[in-house]
């Protein structure tokens, strides 16, 4: 009965994102499976080394997830319930690790942790906790704030102590968001690549690093594919579970944030809030400080020449400009294509749900498998693009588009249809409605998506390790290469580059949170 002003445009909006995914994801991934997979390679599953890799990947992901949840819960509790000095800054700060390039996190813990636990499972788990806890705090804290404070009052007046209140009311209401956040963290740790390559060493490999090792070092592409199928199945199951929980959550909670947040009521609460806030701040900044410190220290002497050298060394300067060029390309292309995809799925009928699924493929397939598919497929005439400069930024876009779409889509979906109706009755054409209502309201989400796409490109390591050529090395690849070489000065240069990336990520989180607090109205 309703007239949707955009419905007829959905098919045109979907063309570019669908083509992009078909050409750069579906075709290369199908191609490697068709051309390189052989039945004999399935024997790899029975090998002890493979079983060890799968077992290690699984248990480190489970332990990391449990520890991330335990560490994040108290921080989510104080940010969801208490007003205190620096609350907003703390929320921004704990988001920084999640968008830091994985190689930077790896490098930070290589510097911070004692050398006795380098190349160990413990180092990997610690880095995974650091990398993911901010994500859990954000997800759980948001849900916690949606629990009506009157429910606490009801439980208290019915005789529940604070502990009983938490166990019988708060925790059950948070259960689904904790599960969904836990699954997301498990997914991140299960498919971890950069952190494991830097901190794991040859003895500690996950499925993702093993795919790289088999394909690039041993030349066993077929074996690598079997592993990537294994990973793909696990990831697909995890993603479908996460989507199921997200749907259940939205049905259960109103999209309202109640005024739960209050000042600590007594000295015990003040003490707990202070302790948790100070600890979490230290946890975030200590690894970052260790990176900065290492970038100016050579043999216990402060030496700023390292910093001069990263701008004068031709190779490093080249990778800096390459990273910036690719970041600009990724921001422009992935934001545009992500916007088109988001509009097509939200404005279109149910038929357009396939665009959503298709654009999630780069996440399901994993960056390493994607990189492998791209170099094998685009290495033959007439599409010999393997050496083309465009290949790596295209890979960055493929990783960024699903994220961009998932940032923009909820804002478009939540936009009340009544605003478009009002605009229409005031004389706006379809294009004018989109330009003056939709675009204006989604602007902050669009800038957020562009900023995150920039972070994705600056930190992308998985697909880039396959596509790198001598003349197109990006900053994370340079860090990884320099860290693998001996010499204090050379390694200090890697840390100076890592510092640059940290500054960029802090600026991006600052921008995103600034936009989040300044947007008007809805």
């Amino acid at each position, binding site marked *: 009965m309703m007239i949707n002003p955009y419905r007829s445009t959905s098919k045109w909006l979907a063309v570019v994102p669908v083509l992009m995914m078909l050409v750069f994801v579906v075709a290369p991934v199908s191609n490697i499976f068709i051309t390189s997979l052989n039945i004999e390679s399935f024997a790899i599953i029975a090998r002890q080394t493979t079983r060890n890799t799968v077992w290690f990947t699984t248990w480190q992901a489970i332990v990391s997830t449990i520890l991330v949840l335990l560490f994040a819960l108290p921080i989510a509790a104080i940010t969801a319930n208490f007003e205190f000095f620096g609350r907003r800054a703390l929320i921004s700060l704990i988001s920084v690790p999640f968008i830091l390039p994985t190689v930077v996190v790896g490098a930070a813990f290589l510097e911070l942790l004692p050398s006795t636990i380098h190349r160990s499972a413990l180092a990997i788990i610690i880095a995974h906790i650091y990398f993911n806890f901010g994500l859990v705090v954000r997800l759980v804290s948001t849900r916690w704030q949606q629990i009506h404070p009157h429910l606490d009052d009801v439980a208290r007046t019915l005789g529940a102590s604070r502990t009983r209140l938490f166990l019988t009311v708060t925790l059950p209401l948070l259960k689904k968001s904790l599960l969904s956040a836990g699954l997301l963290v498990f997914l991140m740790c299960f498919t971890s690549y950069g952190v494991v390559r830097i901190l794991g060493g040859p003895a500690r490999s996950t499925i993702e690093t093993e795919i790289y090792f088999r394909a690039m070092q041993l030349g066993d592409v077929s074996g690598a594919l079997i592993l990537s199928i294994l990973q793909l199945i696990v990831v697909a199951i995890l993603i479908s579970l996460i989507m199921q929980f997200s749907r259940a959550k939205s049905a259960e909670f109103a999209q309202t944030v109640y005024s739960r947040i209050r000042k600590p009521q007594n000295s015990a609460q003040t003490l707990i809030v202070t302790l948790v806030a100070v600890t979490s701040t230290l946890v975030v900044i200590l690894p970052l400080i260790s990176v900065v410190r290492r970038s100016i220290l050579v043999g216990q002497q402060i030496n700023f020449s390292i910093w001069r050298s990263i701008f004068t060394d031709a190779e490093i300067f080249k990778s800096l400009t390459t990273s910036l060029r690719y970041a600009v390309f990724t921001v422009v292309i992935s934001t545009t294509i992500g916007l088109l995809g988001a509009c097509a799925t939200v404005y279109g009928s149910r038929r357009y749900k396939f665009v959503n699924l298709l654009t999630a493929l780069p996440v399901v397939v994993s960056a390493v498998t994607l990189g492998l598919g791209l170099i094998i497929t685009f290495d033959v005439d007439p599409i010999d693009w393997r050496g083309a400069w465009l290949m790596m930024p295209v890979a960055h876009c493929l990783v960024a588009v699903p994220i961009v779409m998932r940032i923009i889509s909820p804002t478009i979906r939540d936009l009340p249809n009544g605003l478009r109706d009002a605009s229409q009755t005031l004389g706006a*054409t379809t294009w004018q409605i989109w330009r003056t209502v939709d675009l204006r309201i989604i602007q902050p989400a669009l800038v957020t998506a562009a900023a995150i796409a920039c972070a994705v490109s600056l930190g992308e390591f998985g697909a880039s390790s396959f596509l790198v050529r001598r003349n197109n090395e990006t900053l994370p690849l340079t860090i990884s290469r320099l860290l693998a070489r001996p010499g204090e000065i050379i390694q200090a240069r890697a840390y100076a580059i890592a510092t640059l990336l940290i500054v960029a990520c802090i600026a991006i989180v600052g921008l995103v949170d600034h936009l989040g607090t300044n947007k*008007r109205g809805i």
Partner: protein
Amino acid sequence: MLECRNLVVTYESTMVLENLSIYIGTGEIVALTGPSGAGKTTLLRCIAGLAKIVSGTIHLNGEEITTKPAHLRCIGLVFQDNQLFPHLNVAENIAYSLRLQRIKQKLVDEKVAEVLELVGLGHLSRREVIKLSGGEAKRIAVARALVAQPKVLLLDEPLSGLDKELHTRLLEDLGNLLRLRGTTTIHVTHDQDEAAKMADRVLDIRNLMQH
């Protein structure tokens, strides 16, 4: 004048409007009453061009507008929940339709100031709409619709949710304003008393349908 003939509207196989016919003369204010779910809002949305009709015709000043897009109909609609644009302030909300017509900024400012004075809120032009009270938001929604100079104004329960004092005051102001400007109006309401005070004619939507 506005005339709807034998309108039929269905929603998921349920008949919402069944052979509905209505005639409203130029400058007339008609109140439309009826129980919840009787199709009052649906009728307004059909007239405005925001809902599909299965059959029937709509004529405005002799021209058939049944399939004409909403933005070309010159029919204003004040929504029950106002639907003020949250990304625009009060003056920008009111100026919205004028800007679409690419009217010069000076003239836009004059018209906005004039209509704001008319609804008694001249002092709020720069205020963000999320900071308006219920009554203020309602007046701004009416002002936004009026400034576009619609041939017909549709009011969908414009006074619901307001406290009694504000309701009485706004009812009187709105009635005076519409009569002053001679705006053809359909006013949907649950409140028989409100309907009687505001309108030249009161119609029950159930009596407009032929089963």
